[in-house]
């Protein structure tokens, strides 16, 4: 019994070692790249999604090469994209067609139907710097206060805010980034806030 076990153990150990040796031989690219502020990105060669036998991936830009230069975040791509855009770290194109209208709206919406959590502040400015009005209005959100039955269940299922947040924009674990307005200290009126600047066609009507 004892000998059988030892033999089996030895065999498995040998198998494991040979697999590890094979893996070690394949290790050309490091698994992770680090930036000076301790952010970590996978290398394309070993991210388990790109095919390492595909030689073309050696030509592609590595995430860390571009992202380590951009403002720090601890989640998502490890980059604060809004800050990167606003402070000029990146200058992404706004349009391809010359006739496309660039609409940026600076107006907050405070949503108070959040049970015991802090209220949600939706800033149009940050969103319209990246997106067009038509990306959300009116197929995801009707441009009217209280017209949208948003629930966290729907958001987590990828509807409403969840179309981007949790997939491309910052993850849904970051509750406080949206639920950011404390009832105790908020003195104004909930709903659409006064417009600071922007395109008047898409302004939601304030609550009566």
């Amino acid at each position: 019994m004892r000998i059988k076990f030892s033999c089996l153990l030895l065999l498995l150990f040998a198998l494991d070692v040979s697999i590890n040796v094979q893996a070690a031989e394949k290790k050309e690219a490091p698994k992770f790249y680090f930036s000076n502020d301790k952010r970590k990105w996978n290398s394309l060669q070993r991210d388990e999604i790109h095919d390492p036998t595909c030689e073309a991936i050696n030509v592609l830009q590595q995430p860390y090469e571009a992202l380590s230069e951009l403002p720090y975040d601890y989640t998502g791509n490890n980059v604060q994209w809004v800050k990167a855009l606003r402070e000029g770290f990146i200058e992404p194109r706004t349009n391809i067609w010359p006739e496309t209208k660039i609409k940026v709206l600076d107006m907050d919406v405070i949503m108070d139907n959040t049970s015991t959590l802090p209220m949600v502040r939706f800033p149009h400015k940050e969103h319209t710097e990246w997106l067009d009005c038509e990306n959300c209005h009116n197929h995801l959100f009707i441009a009217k206060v209280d017209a949208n039955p948003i629930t966290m269940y729907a958001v987590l299922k990828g509807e409403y805010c969840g179309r981007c947040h949790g997939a491309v924009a910052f993850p849904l674990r970051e509750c406080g980034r949206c639920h950011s307005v404390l009832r105790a200290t908020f003195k104004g009126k909930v709903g659409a806030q006064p417009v600071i600047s922007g395109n008047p066609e898409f302004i939601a009507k304030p609550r009566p």
Partner: protein
Amino acid sequence: MNNIKNQFRKILFLLLPIVGMMTPGVLFAEYADVVMNKRSDKMGLRPVIFPHWFHRIRFRCKVCHSELGFEMRVGSNDVTMAEIANGKFCGMCHNGEVAWSIEHCDLCHSGKPGLKSGIDWGWDKSLTPDSW
């Protein structure tokens, strides 16, 4: 009693490497990387990996999601190579002038064969109420 304990330990040691070998590889793709595999596998090509991080450094969301007509939902865009060759969708830039042309198949079709379409960390992979 001691004998049973010893045997249990041995079995545990035996099982550990087996379990280790059977554990599927964990995905470490960059946040918001999209795998597109509606047709690639069937055509004998590698699936397409679309890195959002790379593109949003150069273009705002609205360029692709408004001007080029990409729906903001995995699986809802029916992109064919014929359309790309005609300058639709990816073909607006991937034409050899702005970005590489469609002859460089492997630069986009670079995913592991058999990957499921989806967004890494997307709503269908994490935090969904259905997975609770």
